């Protein structure tokens, strides 16, 4: 049984990756996003290559880059994944797959990891490409190490969180409606100040990675003035905002991954009940 699950997971992951990797839009959407951002004068490149604007430390530069790209490109990421699970029903492939011995839970996880990874490739290409260019330009090879760290504790957990909900929530509502609500959530849950209204921004449930940014990467904005995590005087939901430490940073990552797993499990139950 374990062998069957592993084989199913492997096959599903491989093919879902290939199918998603080939889609033009998976590449065009991030490219247009970055292009549009640069067109309006976005500081992505200035913060890396302009001597007048570069931060003193390589760590700050590449982590700031991670934050900007993660904030911008995750929207398209979630939108592109929104129809990947319900697609099987639309293409009438589900009955064929359900009639194989391959466990449907393993297929779901394979689709999650495969399609999620494929959609993340362009984002990572942009990120590591720019980080590498910066490392060469600034003569700071250790910048790549920091880029890897930022990717591991900020970008990847955030994308895993987004991918899980993007796949399963459209089981319960039209995918376009999910896209609208997802954008609203991304704004509310990441950016809106906790002093303006009750929000999940700066809590442990922060897909933009506030706690790892603050406590693991010691990042406080490009000018060093921002706080990304922790309690806010007068805000509601402060019980979800412990002081940022290494422990609470890893806890935040674990919370995101647990919520992702719960979403996938919920989606699996919904599909199984409907079959």
């Amino acid at each position: 049984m374990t062998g069957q699950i592993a084989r199913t997971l492997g096959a599903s992951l491989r093919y879902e990756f290939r199918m998603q990797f080939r889609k033009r839009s998976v590449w065009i959407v991030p490219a247009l996003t970055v292009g549009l951002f640069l067109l309006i004068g976005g500081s992505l490149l200035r913060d890396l290559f302009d001597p007048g604007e570069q931060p003193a430390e390589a760590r700050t530069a590449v982590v700031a880059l991670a934050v900007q790209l993660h904030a911008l490109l995750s929207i398209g990421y979630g939108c592109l994944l929104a129809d990947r699970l319900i697609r099987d029903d639309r293409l009438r492939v589900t009955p064929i797959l359900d009639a194989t011995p391959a466990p449907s839970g393993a297929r779901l996880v394979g689709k999650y990891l495969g399609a999620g990874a494929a959609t993340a490739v362009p984002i990572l290409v942009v990120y590591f490409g720019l980080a590498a260019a910066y490392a060469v330009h600034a003569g700071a090879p250790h910048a790549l190490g920091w880029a890897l760290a930022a990717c591991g504790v900020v970008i990847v957990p955030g994308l895993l969180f987004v991918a899980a909900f993007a796949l399963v929530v459209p089981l319960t509502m039209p995918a376009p409606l999910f896209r609208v609500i997802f954008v609203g959530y991304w704004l509310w849950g990441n950016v809106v100040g906790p002093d303006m209204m009750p929000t999940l921004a700066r809590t442990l449930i922060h897909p933009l990675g506030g706690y790892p940014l603050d406590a693991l990467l010691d990042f406080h904005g490009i000018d060093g003035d921002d706080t990304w995590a922790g309690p806010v005087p007068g805000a509601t939901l402060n019980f979800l905002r412990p002081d940022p430490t290494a422990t609470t940073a890893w806890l935040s990552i674990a919370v995101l991954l647990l919520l992702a797993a719960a979403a996938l499990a919920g989606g699996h139950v919904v599909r199984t009940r409907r079959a």
Partner: protein
Amino acid sequence: MRPMTLWRYEARRAGWTALLGPPVAVALGVAAALANPRPGDTTTARILLGALEMAVPLATGVACASLVGRDPAVELQLAVPTPYRVTLLRRMTVTLGWAAVVAGLTAAVLIATGWWERWPANHGPFAGQLTWAAPTIGLGAAGFAAGAVFRSPAAGGALVTTLWTIQEFFADLVQQHLPGRLLYLFATTRGAVPGDWTENRLALLGAAAAFVVLAYVVLARSERLIGEEDE
């Protein structure tokens, strides 16, 4: 003028997002206004107008982006005397029309309850309707064009939401130069140069017209619309 029955069928084809999007957007905006822990009139008024200027266009833009590429009977549609691109325009009109009804009614309530004029940059009860109309039509047309070019609601929706998010996250940056200010969606509630408002609203409507023309031209090649899922 084609019969109302045809318009009713096309409204159905526009889908649940077109129907639910605008009311959900308004409801979330009202909820955000009510949840404001420091309810100054100006801030609350800004959030309420923001629901019309930000949330309704987002919902409508995504709905319009999903009009192309998911029609199960597209091959039949392409073989009837009614051109399919006209049918799609009809669906977009219905989507925009319903958003206009929801936004218009909400604006009427805000005007009647006095919240409209509590936001200093409100531009009055008549011209002020461009607060929601210009970005809704602009982003709706952009979504429609993206859908026509990519034939994928996922790609079209991703582009619309990205465009919206960039303008939301980087308001100051977008409005640094005149072209950006003219195409800024949220000039009423977050405008950097209030004097540019009228030109901004007209520019958005002009951009919408250009997007519709682009979509109309692209959709003329019916061959692109046939076949299995393109993506």
